[in-house]
């Protein structure tokens, strides 16, 4: 795991492995973007390196995370869920309890504050499940900034409550009807808009994807999940966990949990969406079934056909319905530091109901994928093992889909 270490961020003694100066994680990452965006991306990189280590910036962010977003989030020992499986103990990192209901707020507060320090007053974002859109709209309201959120028409349908939330927060939701009308197309359109508005607009990317410095920066803003977990599990169990499990769409909640543990003897498992099955064309298992390619500004695994055309992803969960994945995950897969598995729509739905009934927690469908795999993994392990699952978000936004699947039965 030392092959992509260069110099760590200045003033950051908790820093782990870093990409090279151009954002390469081994052979992955980089900046594959149009020349019009290059100067803005280089400016962002320089601004991030200058501003993020600043004590004033760090303090302002910490106060917001604590007093506004509700951090630290609890680490909860899910005893009834664990007992029913007869195996290892499952702990849930409760990102669902943050303000706006998902880990996305950690990142949007970070990027929004960076935008403020850079003097930018307009934010744009892409969104799939709507969680990142809501989290960006929230931060725009908080800082008095203008906000446009690009969202595929398919996702506008399946995540309707989040569209209304964004409107209430004062953001404009821009419907995107190109391609499949999902997250990938929303990101295409956000990039197109940004090409024309780059001089005064800050693009808040919602995952560890996109051109450098986004994969590194978003990971840094999310790594608080893993840092808190380290201290909390020590306190609760007197030792460090055996396994970390998180769902992977673009990969930000997973990187946030994994990153502080990269150099520790802990297993890591990323759970992708298998949709209707990874042997059908309808899945979103980018690391499991994709090939190396270039999408949305970085080199990583991509779902594509033999001609290099990007193929449609499918998942019941809008937040995992994406044919790309962050480049650092591609490297973790390549070096085998992390393992990537997948869970189908119906397994995720079962896990949703199980967690709701046994623990009184309605997870987001994205997070239900991680719970589903954790149940399998826990059952196969001794009772002395400890699993930490990142419960990345709450399920309120998914109730429409959940009800319709229940009616269909």
């Amino acid at each position, binding site marked *: 795991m030392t092959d992509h270490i260069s110099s760590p961020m200045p003033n950051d003694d908790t820093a782990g492995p870093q990409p090279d100066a151009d954002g390469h994680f081994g052979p992955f990452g980089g900046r594959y973007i149009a020349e*019009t965006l290059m100067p803005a991306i280089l400016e962002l990189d320089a601004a991030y390196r200058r501003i993020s280590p600043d004590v004033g910036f760090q303090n302002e962010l910490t106060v917001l995370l604590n007093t506004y977003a509700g951090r630290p989030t609890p680490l909860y020992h899910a005893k009834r869920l664990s007992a029913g499986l007869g195996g290892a103990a499952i702990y849930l990192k409760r990102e669902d309890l943050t303000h706006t209901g998902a880990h996305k707020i950690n990142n949007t507060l970070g990027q929004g504050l960076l935008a403020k320090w850079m003097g930018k007053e307009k934010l744009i974002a892409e969104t799939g499940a709507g969680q990142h859109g809501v989290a960006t709209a929230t931060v725009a309201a908080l800082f008095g900034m203008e906000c446009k959120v690009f969202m595929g028409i398919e996702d506008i349908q399946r995540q309707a409550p989040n569209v209304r939330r964004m409107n209430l927060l004062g953001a404009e939701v821009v419907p995107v009807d190109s391609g499949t009308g999902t997250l990938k197309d929303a990101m295409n359109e956000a990039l197109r808009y940004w090409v024309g508005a780059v001089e005064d607009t800050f693009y808040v990317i919602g995952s560890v994807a996109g051109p450098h410095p986004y994969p590194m920066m978003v990971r840094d803003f999310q790594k608080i999940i893993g840092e808190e977990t380290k201290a909390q599990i020590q306190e609760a169990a007197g030792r460090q966990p055996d396994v970390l499990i998180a769902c992977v769409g673009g990969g930000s909640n997973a990187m946030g949990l994994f990153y502080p543990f990269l150099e520790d003897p802990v297993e890591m498992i990323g759970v992708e969406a298998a949709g209707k099955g990874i042997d059908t064309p309808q899945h979103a298992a980018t690391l499991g079934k994709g090939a190396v390619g270039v999408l949305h500004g970085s080199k990583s695994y991509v779902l594509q056909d033999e001609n290099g055309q990007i193929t449609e992803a499918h998942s019941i969960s809008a937040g995992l319905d994406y044919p790309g994945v962050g480049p650092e995950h591609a490297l973790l897969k390549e070096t085998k530091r992390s393992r990537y598995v997948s869970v189908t729509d119906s397994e995720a739905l079962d896990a949703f109901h199980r967690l709701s009934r046994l623990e009184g927690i309605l997870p987001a469908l994205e997070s239900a994928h991680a719970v589903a795999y954790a149940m399998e993994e826990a059952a196969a392990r001794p009772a002395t093992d400890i699993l930490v699952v990142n419960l990345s978000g709450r399920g309120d936004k998914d109730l429409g889909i959940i009800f319709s699947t229940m009616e269909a039965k």
Partner: protein
Amino acid sequence: MSRIERTFNALKEKGEKALVGFVTAGDPNPEMSMELIRAMCRAGVDILELGIPFSDPTADGPLIQRSSSRALAANVSLDTVLEITARLRNETDVPIILFSYYNPIHAFGTEKFYGKAQAAGADGVLVVDLPPEESDEMTGCWNGGTFCLIRLIAPTTPQPRMKMIAGEAGGFLYMVSKTGVTGSAGLDVSQAQVNIEHLKKITSLPICVGFGVSTAADVSALAAVADGVVIGSAFEKLIEENLEDSDLVTVMEEKVREFKSATRVSR
């Protein structure tokens, strides 16, 4: 001397500027596309830019997005584009630049692409999402021939970066006329003229300007300062509006003639 250099030299002698015509190769289907490109050549296009269709063209506006989709629906792949290139090369000496996003080339194999594109008779490639910082895989394939990597300069590109890019570029420099995707409205001709004058001071390569150029008046205003003018979306619009029309080819030929006469600005 490369075909591109020969073209610019010949134009200079005639007191003309280059009309660079972009169409997505294989739009609306490979046969019709061949007919359209032949018509462009008959009407006097000086350099052809053939787009390799891609599912996610993030630097393109709706017109080129839709032309890409039409070509993909007609099963056009990179292989098809190379076939079209080879057929054209048998018929014309007009320089052909392939225009692509990186993923189709990466999936094809960058080295294989380099070899096959040259064998087909292409004169260069412009990869929109491949800035000089990420070009090693591409430049590493260079075999000393005249096949060149065309580079973009944007209105946002600062001076030192312009120098760096110009230093790595071949063929000609493609100056993006405005911040925005292809086909954006609101071209500011006088601003573009100022940007071209800036760029001229730091490079001896020919400068072609494009993005959002849609009228003959724009062409002659830009041709007064640049070495060439690139037209793309305006051709795609014409194809889209006349898809069902039996004189599509004639309409294209007339349009190219109109733009070409606007490049005859002897100074």
